[in-house]
């Protein structure tokens, strides 16, 4: 009984985090459409609710009630499993993300994270690496040439950009002397890592965009010119699971950018609780990601590979070298 009781805070935290993450894509789709609209000088969704605020709900109902179509020649089991597999890694990432220093609540100390692993950063990189399995399964199980081609394309992209992404954070780890995310944030007391690691940040940001498959690297869903990607055959609720996963990756990425390079919850104004300050910075990053989407054109596939292997990878290696020399 005592053992079960000791798990209670963890269970509550898990319910809160999962609940927020499941609901978060709703406002994010609205935000994305509004930002798109205002950048393109049009009002965007206006009909459902005040300034279209209820539009995501309408969209969700539409997606849920749509016909769930499975191609005849598809591998039915894997076709059904793939969207769920795609959804697992982004949730796993949030296991290791801390939202602030421990706080006092009802007389007990509560850590604002599900698990503050001492290999936290490595864990996050590892589980975001498994994100590619959803793509693989979806493309292969659909048994359609567009889906397979699209999935091969995105697998190659994700594998290529995982490497510079992993290398770019080594500088941060060197500065903090730890892979624990709370320690990395604590090491930025006074001076944020963006000042000390501008190259690392640049590489991480760009590689992150590619990992999240956002413009300018959104070849997986180039619906106009490449017949969409691995989710060509998906419809209804299964498709919306992929979309959910995509938005969660975006949010996770914003969190990582803030925690690794922008001081996490440090340095906020005194009247704001640290975790709200963290959320504010994360929101800023999400906004930048959306802003970029409607500013940049999409890269060609060969340009994508060139940027990954010939620009970002050497840059990240150079960053490690320079940080090493400067630290010695």
């Amino acid at each position, binding site marked *: 009984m005592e053992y079960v009781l000791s798990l209670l805070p963890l269970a509550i935290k898990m319910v809160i985090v999962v609940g927020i993450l499941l609901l978060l894509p709703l406002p994010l789709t609205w935000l994305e459409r509004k930002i798109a609209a205002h950048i393109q000088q049009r009002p965007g969704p206006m009909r459902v609710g005040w300034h279209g605020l209820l539009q995501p709900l309408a969209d969700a109902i539409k997606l849920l009630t749509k016909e769930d179509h499975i191609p005849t020649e598809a591998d039915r089991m894997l076709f059904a499993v793939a969207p769920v597999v795609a959804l697992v890694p982004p949730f796993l990432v949030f296991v290791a993300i801390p939202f602030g220093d421990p706080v006092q609540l009802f007389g007990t100390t509560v850590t604002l994270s599900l698990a503050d692993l*001492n*290999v936290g950063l*490595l864990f996050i990189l590892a589980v975001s690496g498994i994100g590619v399995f959803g793509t693989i*399964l979806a493309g292969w199980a659909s048994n359609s040439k567009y889906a397979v081609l699209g999935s091969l394309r995105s697998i*190659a992209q994700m*594998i290529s950009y995982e490497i510079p992404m992993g290398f770019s954070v080594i500088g941060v780890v060197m500065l903090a002397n730890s*892979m624990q995310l709370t320690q990395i944030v604590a090491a930025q007391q006074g001076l944020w890592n963006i000042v000390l690691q501008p190259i690392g940040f640049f590489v991480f940001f760009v590689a992150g965009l590619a990992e999240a498959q956002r413009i300018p690297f959104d070849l997986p869903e180039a619906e106009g010119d490449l017949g969409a990607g691995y989710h060509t055959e998906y419809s209804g609720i299964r498709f919306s699971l992929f979309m959910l996963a995509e938005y969660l990756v975006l949010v996770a990425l914003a969190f990582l950018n803030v925690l690794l390079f922008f001081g996490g919850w440090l340095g906020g104004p005194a009247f704001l609780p640290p975790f709200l300050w963290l959320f504010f910075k994360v929101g800023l990053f999400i906004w930048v990601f959306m802003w970029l989407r409607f500013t940049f054109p999409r890269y060609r596939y060969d340009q994508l590979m060139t940027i990954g292997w010939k620009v970002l990878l050497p840059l990240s290696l150079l960053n490690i070298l320079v940080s090493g020399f400067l630290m010695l």
Partner: protein
Amino acid sequence: MEREFFLLLSGVATISALLVVLARNPVHSALALVVCLVQIAALYVLLGAPFLAVIQIFVYVGAVMVLFLFVIMMLDVRKEAQTRYLRNAVWPGLIVLALLAAELVTLLIQSARLHAVLGPGQPITEQPSVEALSLLLFQDFLLPFEVASVILLVALVGAVVLARPDEAAAAGKVDKPHSGGRR
């Protein structure tokens, strides 16, 4: 609690390992292997080695298995995988299986004596830190580490050499895709 978790994890690992061999479809085999590797990573966590667990997921699940699946998809080996690699391999297979089983059973029976010989393991008093591990790797065992990396490099170069199209054959064909020119 730990025991139940161990049974659960090792049970799933065994079943998925069986599926790797029994599945008819290569993609299903590869996925079963992914499940198996994840279970093993979870076992590492249970043993108090989170670093090893994360590396297991990073390298085996995230890199090796993705490349496996990538190749399976590229080559579309559905038909190929149905044919046997070795004919009449049943008897050698059974013999090896029997040997392995005998080894396992002997170890199980002798485990008390082994325990006496090896002595009790040192219980982990604190979370093993990444720093301690890197000190071990880069100071105490630097030479084996370097040798291992050189061997990996040689394997890499060897794979590139093997994968290169034959120079002489390539010279005959004028219009070979991807053989040159600006990309």
